Each structure stands twice: as C-alpha cells, then as structure tokens.
C-alpha cells in the first residue's frame, strides 16, 4: 500500500491529530473532538458538494475519532461515495472506513456491495484487490451471500493478475471459514487444486491455505492435491537457495510455502502411488539432510526458517508412521535438539519426541535419549519444558527402563513445581502399576509417592494400591511390613495413615509374629495417628480396629476401651459415633465365630480399568495421552492384578462382609472407582429390573424398539409407548424407564409435599463411548405454568459400559394432566441418536396420605357430592384380583389406605391430599372389586373436578 506521500498528505488531519496528542486532559480531548465532529457535520451537511480530497480527509478524521473510542454514527454515506472514486487513495480510505465501521443498514450494504461488485468487475488489479480485502476484512454473511459465487471465478480465471488471485484465495478462505455453507466449490475444485502448479509463488502460498482448509472438510474431493503438493515440495526442496529469488528467506527457499505444503500432506494418508511416495520420501530425506548441513547464516531467522520446515517434516513423518528409517532419523535429529541452547527448540523436540515414542518403529530410538531427558528434567530452567520432559519420560517408559524412570520421576517429584505435581503423581502411580514385575517394588514406590507428595496423591491412587495388595497374596506380608515401617515416621501423611490402617487391619496378622510389631504395638502405632486425622480417615481407622479385634483377640479389651471412650462413643460426628457404638456392641455381643465371619478378610476385588488411568484421561483430555497408550495401559494393568481367576467378590457381597451400614463416607469397602452410582454397573441392570418391576421389563413390548432411526437435530416426538411407560410408574417411584440396545435409563424418585426429586441413571450398554450426550426436559403447552421442572446438566460423555446420573428437581405449582417430556440426544459411533420420553411425573405423586375414621370419611364423601367432583369408571380387571397386590398398588399411589371404613370388607377406600404450590386438593377414593365378574368400580371424589378425572384415568390402567 503506497504510503501517503508528502504532497498528498492531509494537513487538516495531521493538525487535528497533533491537537489531540497535545491535549492535557481527557476533557480537553473530548472538547476538541466535539468541535471537530460539529465541523465535519456542518461540512457534510453543506449544500455545496465536497471534492474528493476533503471527503477523504473528513472520513479519515472520523475514522481516527472512532479509533479513539468515540461513537461515530454518520459519514457512512460519504465513505461509500469515496468507493466510487477513481483515485486510489480515496478508494482506499473509503474501503478502510467501511471495513472498520460496517453498518448493518440494509441500504448502505446494498450500495457497498454494488461498489464492490463494480470494482471486482473492473480490470484494474489494485481496485480488485481493495475490494477483495474489504470482503475478507468484513467477512459477514451478507458479503458471503453476495460474493461467494463471484470470487472462485476470479480465482481460477486465466487472465486474472497474480496479486488478485492471491487476494481472492485468501478472501475465499475467510468466507469459507465464516459461512462454509455458502461457499460451494463443486466445479471449481480441480482448477483450484491446480493452482498448486501456478508459476507465482505468492499465489501458491495463498491457494494452499485455502486448499488445506477445504480438504480438511472434504478430503476426497481434493485428493488430487497430494501428488501436486509432493511435486511442488520436491521442486522447492531440491532448488538451490538462489533459485527462488524473492521467495528465499535467509538462504531458505520458500519456508512458509514448504511448511504449508507439509501441513497439507498431513491431512492425507501416505500416497499410494509408489512414484509419488518415493519422491516424497526423498524430499523428507533431503530436509533431514539439510538439517545436518552447517548453517549458511548465523542469523536467527535462518535457523528459525530451517527448523520450522524440519519440525513440520517430522510431524508428517510421525503422521505417516510407516517409514522406520525416517522415524529413526527424525528421532536422532530431535535428539540433537534436546541439548540445543535454544529453549524453544528443546521444548519442541521434547514435544515431538512424545509422539515419536508412541510409534513402534521409533520407540527404541527414543529410549536412547533417556539420559538427556532425565537431565533436562533436573536442570531445565523453564517449567513448561520440564513438563514436556516429564511427559516424554512417561511416554518412553516400558518394562526395560521402568525402574529407572520411576525412580527419577520420584526424585524429581520432591522438587517439582506445584502445578504439575498431581499429574506427576498420577503418572508415577500408573507407570509403577503398569510395569511392575515385582510387587514389593510397586508397594515401595507407591508408599514413597505418598511420603513425598502426600497432598497430591488423589483418592484413586491409594484405592488402587489397596486393590492390588488385596488381590495379590504374595505381596500382602511385605506390604504390611513396609506400611508398618512407614507409619513409624514421626510425621506421616494422612493418606499413608489410610493405607496403613487398611492394610494392617487386613493383614496385620502376617507381621504379628515379630515382637517389634506385635498386635498391641501395631494398634498403638495406628492409634497414635488417630487424633491427627480427618473424619473419613478416623472412620476407616475404627473399622481397622474392629478388624484387629478379630485378628488379635488379645487386643480386644484395649480396643473396647478406646471405643468406649467419650471421644468415640459420643463423638459429634454421626458416622464416627455410629461406628463406635456398633463396633463396640459387635465386639462384646458376637461370638468369635460370628466375628470371624463378619470381619472376614476382604475378598479380591473384581477386575476393572485402573481408576488412575481414567482420572489422568479426564485431567488431560483425550489428546494428551494417546488412545493406544491408554488401551495398552489397560491391558497391562489387567495383567498385573488379574492374578487369580476368582472374581467372586461383587460389591454387594463385600458390603455384606462389613458390619458398618453403608454411608456417604463409605470406607474399607468404598473403593469408589467412580461416582457412587456405578455401584450398580450396567451389567447389573437386570438386577435393577428385578428389584423394581414385578412385570419383567423385557416382556413388555415397548422395550424391543430398535435404536431410533429418526436422527434430526430437533427433539424427536415422544415414543409411542411413552404413555404406557408413564402408567407403569403411577404406583411406584423407582425402576427402569427405558431400555434399548444402546441405552438404559433407570429412575429413582422421591416426593415430599409439592416438591419432588428424580434421579435418572443413563447407562451406556455398549462398549463405545457416547459423545455430546445432552438431555433436555421440557413442559409442553399448558403444563408449563403447572409444573416447574429443573434438570441439572449431565456429563456430555458416557464411556462404554459406564453410567451417569442426572438430578431433576420438580415443583408442582398447580394440578396437571400431562407429563413433562425428556429428550435425549447423543452420538453413538458418529450417528446421532435422538429420543423423547415422557417423564413419569403424575399428579398422584404429590399425594399426602390422610388417615381418618369411618365417620369422617363418609362425612367428607358426602360433602363432595357435586356431580363434577366425582369421577367414576367401571372396567374389567387386566391383572389377577389379588387383594395384597391391589393394596400395594393403592399404597404406591400415595394415598392412605383406610381399613375398617367401608362396610363391605372387599372394598378399598383411600384418602389423601394433593399438595400443589397453589392449593391443596383433598381426594377420596373407593374401589369396589367384583370377583365374579372380574370387574372393578372405581369412584373418585375430590374438591377439584380435573383432579378426579385425571386420577380416575390414571388408576383405571393399573388394575
């Protein structure tokens, strides 16, 4: 853009700007601006037309004022007028103003678009460029609509100047990014791809950005670009540094273009055509070779450009992951950078090596740099680089070097930055578990970990060590001994106490033979830590004590003494108090046999994915630890603790083995691997069904529905069966709401007065994760003012086989007939699943039972004698007429079942009050079965007619 030459300079503008700069205070500046604005307004208002120069000058001033932060609400017209000028400077200022202050005034937009169109169709390349730049700068949808068709034509037209092509390519890229639906390449595709062959390097550079973006969206259409890109690349790479003249940057030929080409190639798998592939490999080799050459210049720009290409090439090599030779060479090259004095290079080298380490070809090569990396971890000054080094160590770890790496990471942990400690702890824990050959080593490592960085050891880590110790017989004795020794340290971390309490409680007997660790010594050691611990730990210790009583009867009196002390048995914490009381009683009442049964050693835990891995995954997001690696981890983790085939221990049986009542601060058994709900894993779904639904769920027809194929983004219409679903839940609050091949939805709900809370459990029945899982609850139509439903957000990702929970709060504002709709959307293997269900919220849920005597009942019954207050239905029984079942159903309805009220003992009468926020509706019910005819007569009377009717409808379906 030509600078404003002296002769062309706008004096008025310069004076104005210098005035503003000289203002001593904000107020003075505002005054000056007001004055100038008034001046410009009077000039624009003036009857005589302004010449181009002054128009330009005033528009410039307005622009300057706008950039100072003041509102400008006029001058757009003048700017648009400038667009039609033939002078470059005036046109330029016009476009500048328009791109900075776009106004959504439709008339103006039309004028602007018109002016742009004129410029685009003019043959003047500078004008075309200005217009294209304006479109790209504004990039609005309107612009895209107007010009998306025009620009590709300019881009591929044979007679377009190079500079215009360049602008057109970038302009199109911008429009594509803002409104991809409007930019349709179609017929232009092949011609755009062939821009890669253009003579002009600038055009190629611009076009390649566009092509990269487009091919990321639809790779197939642009497949042909691969061979073109390869040949382009090889021409650049093999050219001497002087060949490309203007495009040689500090002796590196076209570095930007090369980088972009390499990046484009990363969008595609390795080329299948042998010749192309050979050429590409040759290119990559040349790039790697060039990195070895002595630098042609000492300038930093030279090495930056060279390294940029190199790193891009290495990413491509890693992306292909098929050329062992190249991978190893890349690794060696990165190895050199590891000791480079440039921090950024070291960072990048470590980062790239992390990905290299996961490739089977280069894993070994990466391992050779272990010393350097460890050194980097210790000596590096920049924390982000240290973090990368730690990542790399983690990535390069395998069976052969695990001990060394874990030791190094442990020693680093003592000095590590606080921000990465937790992650480091997780990594150490995972590595120790994954590559443990020797369990004593594993136990040592984890205990060390707790000792060094106790605060950063999350629950999962110590849960895991206990799981492993319990599942491995051979390590238990050693673990007990080590823990005992660790606890003898004067100050030990609470996590250590937890592990210690648990392990000694289970396996303290294994070391009791040694007089130095006799039962009493063990107990005293544990109890000495008791007062320093938080409530959950204390609870755990209490459980350990009762286990001691079983293991070592000789400690019984001591422990009972402890339990009996006021600080336990009258503890203000309910959980602790309950444990103390129960354990005390248990120890004094139960016989040794019973004790031994109740306090039996914990059965081995069932195999499951290491909770630590899950945690790390969550912490870092899926990208950070590659999926391969995770799966590998899972596999190896499985090997580790898969020791015995005995997997009998289900959670429920473990629960039974513990005397304590299950409580939120669940303890010994509470190796909570996830949210508490996973205690009923999806596999146990059938169990859930058995418990809650008397009619086996799978018998009901509605469950066989195929995965819904309606995959529109809108909420699907409710399933046809959803009314039946609703009826199923009239008389009960818990059960399975819905089930198909993919998904199971369980329900638990509770109601009090006019408020209710519903827990929905979404279980993923597949092994693939559901993504973008969203649920919405809505109250359609007239239900909206009657019911207030609030759903807490649910996690958007459900792992295969996992279950998530959602809480829904319900408030009944008035009586209602409809049910709220639950809409569920998620992606399963890319396909959108969309289903709608009715939530089983019915008016009877808000019943408060009312007990009354026979006299009262009939008095009220008579009071409600208006015809609209009564609803009656006579219907045939659809289930067996079992009195007990009917009673259970009526109780489930929420009303009080009144005995000895009706003169006929066969009949059932109920009374209840429906609590809504607005009012209370008293209701009375009378159900008269006729066993001979297999018929029922159901009569409902309530103070509100709609309620009677609705209740009658609901109930008629139940018997």
């Amino acid at each position, binding site marked *: 853009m030509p600078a404003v030459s002296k002769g062309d300079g706008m004096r008025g503008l310069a004076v104005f700007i210098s005035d503003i700069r000289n203002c*001593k*205070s*904000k107020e003075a500046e*505002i*005054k*000056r601006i*007001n*004055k100038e*604005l*008034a*001046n410009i*307004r*009077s000039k*624009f*208002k003036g009857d005589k037309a302004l010449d181009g120069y002054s128009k330009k000058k005033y528009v410039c001033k307005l622009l300057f004022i706008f950039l100072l*932060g003041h509102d400008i*609400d*006029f001058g*757009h017209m003048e700017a648009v007028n400038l667009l039609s000028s033939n002078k470059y400077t005036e046109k330029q200022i016009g476009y500048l103003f328009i791109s900075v202050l776009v*106004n959504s*005034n439709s008339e*103006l937009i039309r004028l602007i678009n018109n002016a742009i169109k004129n410029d685009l169709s003019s043959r003047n390349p500078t004008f075309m460029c200005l217009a294209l730049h304006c479109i790209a700068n504004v990039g609005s949808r309107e612009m895209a609509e107007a010009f998306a068709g025009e620009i590709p034509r300019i881009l591929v037209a044979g007679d377009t100047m190079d500079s215009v092509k360049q602008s057109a390519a970038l302009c199109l890229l911008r429009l594509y990014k803002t409104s991809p639906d409007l930019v349709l390449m179609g017929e232009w595709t092949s011609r755009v791809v062939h821009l890669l062959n253009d003579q002009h390097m600038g055009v190629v550079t611009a076009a390649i950005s566009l092509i990269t973006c487009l091919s990321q969206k639809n790779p197939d259409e642009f497949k042909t670009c691969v061979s073109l890109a390869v040949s382009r690349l090889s021409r650049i790479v093999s050219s001497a540094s002087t060949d490309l003249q203007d495009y040689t940057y500090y002796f590196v030929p076209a570095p930007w273009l090369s980088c972009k080409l390499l990046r484009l190639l990363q969008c595609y798998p390795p080329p299948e055509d042998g010749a192309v592939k050979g050429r590409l490999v040759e290119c990559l080799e040349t790039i790697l070779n060039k990195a070895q050459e002595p630098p042609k210049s000492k300038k930093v720009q030279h090495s930056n450009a060279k390294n940029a290409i190199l790193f891009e090439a290495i990413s491509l090599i890693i992306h292909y992951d098929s050329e062992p030779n190249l991978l190893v060479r890349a690794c060696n090259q990165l190895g050199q950078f590891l000791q480079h004095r440039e921090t950024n290079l070291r960072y990048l080298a470590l980062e790239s090596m992390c990905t290299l380490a996961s490739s089977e070809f280069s894993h070994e090569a990466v391992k050779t740099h272990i010393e350097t990396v460890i050194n980097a971890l210790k000596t590096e000054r920049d924390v982000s680089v240290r973090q990368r080094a730690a990542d790399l160590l983690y990535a390069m770890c395998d069976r052969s070097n695990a001990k060394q790496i874990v030791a190094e990471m442990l020693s680093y942990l003592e000095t590590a930055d606080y921000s990465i400690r937790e992650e480091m702890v997780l990594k150490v824990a995972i590595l120790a578990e994954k590559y443990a050959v020797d369990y004593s080593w594993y136990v040592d490592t984890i205990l060390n970990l707790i000792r060094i960085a106790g605060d950063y050891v999350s629950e999962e880590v110590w849960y895991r060590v206990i799981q492993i110790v319990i599942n491995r017989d051979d390590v238990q004795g050693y673990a007990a001994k080590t823990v005992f020794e660790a606890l003898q340290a004067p100050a030990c971390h609470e996590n250590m106490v937890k592990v210690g309490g648990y392990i000694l409680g289970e396996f303290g007997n294994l070391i009791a033979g040694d007089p130095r660790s006799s039962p009493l010594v063990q107990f005293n050691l544990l109890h000495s830590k008791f007062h320093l611990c938080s409530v959950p730990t204390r609870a755990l210790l209490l459980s350990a004590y009762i286990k001691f009583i079983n293991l070592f009867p000789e400690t019984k009196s001591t422990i009972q003494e402890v339990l009996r002390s006021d600080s336990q048995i009258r503890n203000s914490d309910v959980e602790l108090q309950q444990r103390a009381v129960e354990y005390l009683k248990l120890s004094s009442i139960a016989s040794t046999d019973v004790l031994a049964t109740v306090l039996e050693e914990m059965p081995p835990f069932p195999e499951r994915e290491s909770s630590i891995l899950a945690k790390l995954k969550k912490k870092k997001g899926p990208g950070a630890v590659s999926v391969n690696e995770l799966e590998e981890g899972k596999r190896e983790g499985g090997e580790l603790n898969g020791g015995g085939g005995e997997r009998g221990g289900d959670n429920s049986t473990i629960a039974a083995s513990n005397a304590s009542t299950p409580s939120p601060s669940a303890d010994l058994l509470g190796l909570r691997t996830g949210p508490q709900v996973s205690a009923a894993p999806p596999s146990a779904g059938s169990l859930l069904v058995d418990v809650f639904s008397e009619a086996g769920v799978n018998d009901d027809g509605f469950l066989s529905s195929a995965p819904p194929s309606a995959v529109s983004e809108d909420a699907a219409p409710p399933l046809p069966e959803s009314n039946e679903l609703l009826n199923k839940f009239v008389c009960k609050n818990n059960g399975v709401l819905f089930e198909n091949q993919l998904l199971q939805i369980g329900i638990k709900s509770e109601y009090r007065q006019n408020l209710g809370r519903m827990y929905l459990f979404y279980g993923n029945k597949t092994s693939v994760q559901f993504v973008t899982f969203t649920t919405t609850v809505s109250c359609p139509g007239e239900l909206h003012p009657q019911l207030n439903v609030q759903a807490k957000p649910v996690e958007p990702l459900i792992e295969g086989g996992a279950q998530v929970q959602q809480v829904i709060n319900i408030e009944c504002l008035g009586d209602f007939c409809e049910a709220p709709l639950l809409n569920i959307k998620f992606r399963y293997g890319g396909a959108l699943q969309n289903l709608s269900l009715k939530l089983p919220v019915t008016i009877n849920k808000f019943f408060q039972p009312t007990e009354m005597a026979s006299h009262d009942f009939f008095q009220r019954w008579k009071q409600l004698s208006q015809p609209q207050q009564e609803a009656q239905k006579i219907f045939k029984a659809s289930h067996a007429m079992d009195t007990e079942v009917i009673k259970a159903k009526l109780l489930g309805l929420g009303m009080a079942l009144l005995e000895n009220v009706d003169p006929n003992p066969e009949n059932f009468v109920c009374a209840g009050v429906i609590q809504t926020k607005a009012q209370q509706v008293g209701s009375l019910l009378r159900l008269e079965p006729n066993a001979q005819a297999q018929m029922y007569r159901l009569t409902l009377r309530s103070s509100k007619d709609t309620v009677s009717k609705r209740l009658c409808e609901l109930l008629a379906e139940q018997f």
Partner: protein
Amino acid sequence: MIGGLFIYNHKGEVLISRVYRDDIGRNAVDAFRVNVIHARQQVRSPVTNIARTSFFHVKRSNIWLAAVTKQNVNAAMVFEFLYKMCDVMTAYFGKISEENIKNNFVLIYELLDEILDFGYPQNSETGALKTFITQQGIKGQTKEEQSQITSQVTGQIGWRREGIKYRRNELFLDVLESVNLLMSPQGQVLSAHVSGRVVMKSYLSGMPECKFGMNDKIVIDKQGKGGTTDDAGKSGKQSIAIDDCTFHQCVRLSKFDSERSISFIPPDGEYELMRYRTTKDIILPFRVIPLVREVGRTKLEVKVVIKSNFKPSLLAQKIEVRIPTPLNTSGVQVICMKGKAKYKASENAIVWKIKRMAGMKESQISAEIELLPTNDKKKWARPPISMNFEVPFAPSGLKVRYLKVFESKLNYSDHDVIKWVRYIGRSGIYETRC
C-alpha cells in the same frame, strides 16, 4: 486515619508524596495513577478501592490530590480535610497549579507535617498556621511571642492568639448561597435546595466575644411565644427553616444546643462561620421557559424565555444560559434580544450570556438548529437547560438580624465596631428540563 497524601499533575506524575503510616507502600502511588488517573472511563468515583486500599481524591484544575488509607475511615472527614488542605494552599500561594506546587515544594511538606499528625488532622486554620509557618522564614521572635505560640498551639483557643490590636475594629460578613433547582418543562419544581455559607472576615482587637443572630425559625418562634406575636404575622415570611447546619470550631455548640444562639470568639482574618441548607420557601431568582419544536428530521427550533423574579431594584449579574444541542447538529442560527449567544461546538451547547438584568424582566432567545440525518435510531436524550447567575440577595430568605461584639477587657463596645453585611446568591445546579 489517613495513611498518606499524594499530589499528582495531570499526567499522573507524583509532585508531592507524604506517607504517614507504614501500611501504605510505594506501590500505592502507582496504583492510583494506573487505576484512576489513567483509567479510560469518563466518570470517576471520588472514592476508589484498590487492593484493600482506599483512595479519596479531589481535583483542582489539572492537579489531583489523593488521600490514601488502609483503614475504614470517615470519608466525609477525609474530604473535609482535602478541601481544607486546598484552602490552606490557596491561602499560602494562590492558585493550585503544577507550577505553584513545584515552587512551594518545601512549604507544602512543612504544611503537611503541621496539619496532619500520624494521619490525624490537626489545626488547619490558615490564620493560625500563618503565624508559625511563613514563607519568608521565621523572623526573630521575642520570648513572649514564642510562649504565645506555644500557648496557642496547646491551648484551648487554638484559632486565635492573644494580644491582637487594631486601630479600627472592623467586621465583614458575607452570606454566600448557591441555589439548586430541577424544574420540569411545565414549570413544576421537581427539587430545589439552597446550600449557604456565612463567611466572616474579622479585624477585632483583643479576645472579643461575638453573638450572631439570624431569622432562624426556631428562634423567632420562641421569641414570638414570649410576647411580640404581631412581628411574625406582620411581614409574612420573616423566618426560615434551616434543615441542617455546621459551624466553625470556634462556635460554642453547647450554647447552640441549649439556646440556639450562636456565640463565639472569632479567629482573626477570614473564616467560614457556618454552613447550612434549606429546602423550604426558596425564592427562585429566575424562571426558564423552554420551547423545543422538531421540524422534520433535520431541523429543530428552540425558544427559551427567562424571567427574573425578584425586586426590580436589584440587579442580577453574570447570567449564562446553556442550551444543549443534539449530537448531530450541523449548523445553528441564533437570535437573541439581549446579551450575546453563541453555539459552542466543543461543548455541544448554545451559550447565551447576559451581563446584567434587573428584577421582574424577561428576555428571550430563539435558535434554529440544523441536524444531520443519522442512521442511528437512538433518540436525542434532551439534556436539561442549565443556568448560571449571581444575585445580590439570599434566595433562602436568610437575614442577619444582629452581630454583637463584646470585649470586656479592652475599651470598645459593640457600637464602635464597623460592620459590613453582604448577601450573594449564586446558582448551583440550576436546571430546567426541556
């Protein structure tokens, strides 16, 4: 209490920095500059809280005075002190400007040491300060004078020294009022109040005891009950209701509380005897009648009439009417019968100035404003028309009934004192909506 005091120039450079307490660090100086002086927003709150430190500032022309504290102090006290500080500086070296502050650098530090001690405000009476902080350096003083200073600084009557003698005993009394008004376009008073000050300049010998009387409603009513009931009835509105008032430290508050009489031993020289506020029965000196007519989208016709509403024998001065114009004004034509009117683009207003105007007169201005059509849908907010003036009476109706001087030791009586009384009513925020 005040932890420190800083004075900045308009660029935010520190001219004076005096820290009284250790809890104020050096970074407080920068915090104020960054967060207040260099802040982008136009409206700055006088009290700013930055990182648990409170900054109270006042601005005099381009100079910022900021008091800093970490404690929960009485903000009104701090501002009172800052204003006092401005008065003291003005009394010593005239206008507060960067130039003057730089020239009187040592003096200001000396003053700051005197009027604030460990952040607690001390005697800030200009007259008293001038006796021991002088710009010329302290002249050789006799032992007597020195002991007098000591007794004054420590004594009961800190505002006056003993042994003052004048050949002519003179007393000047100014009643300065500013009247604030907000009026609806229809002429309804939406809010009005007068805040006034009684400023005295006394040149009296010895230690005189003064008694000041005005037409305070409570006092008059009390007297009326005592006997002369016809006095109140005769002249309609003779007494005024004072909503609240504050006094100079020399006034004996106990006496005011019990008898509502204002008696005091005055300081020497100029001082402010009392401040008060009234809201009832205010005489509005001017009435503004606006007439705004929009003619199409590009033209606005404005006609404003002002009527003076006081005795024809009195003359109002320095009258200025400010008529705001829309933000898209592109040209203005003004016609006025009296005075001069001009469109000031930098202030977005037409300013109409009249030098003098007698009571019970009226004058008129009409203006045609041309507008530039904008594509902005926002309507012009029509800010109120504001007015400035000065009138030679007290709009609150306050009258000085007497000012008696008693000096028992020296031989002059009340009659020998020459007394001057002057009333000045000024406009405060005097606005009429249009």
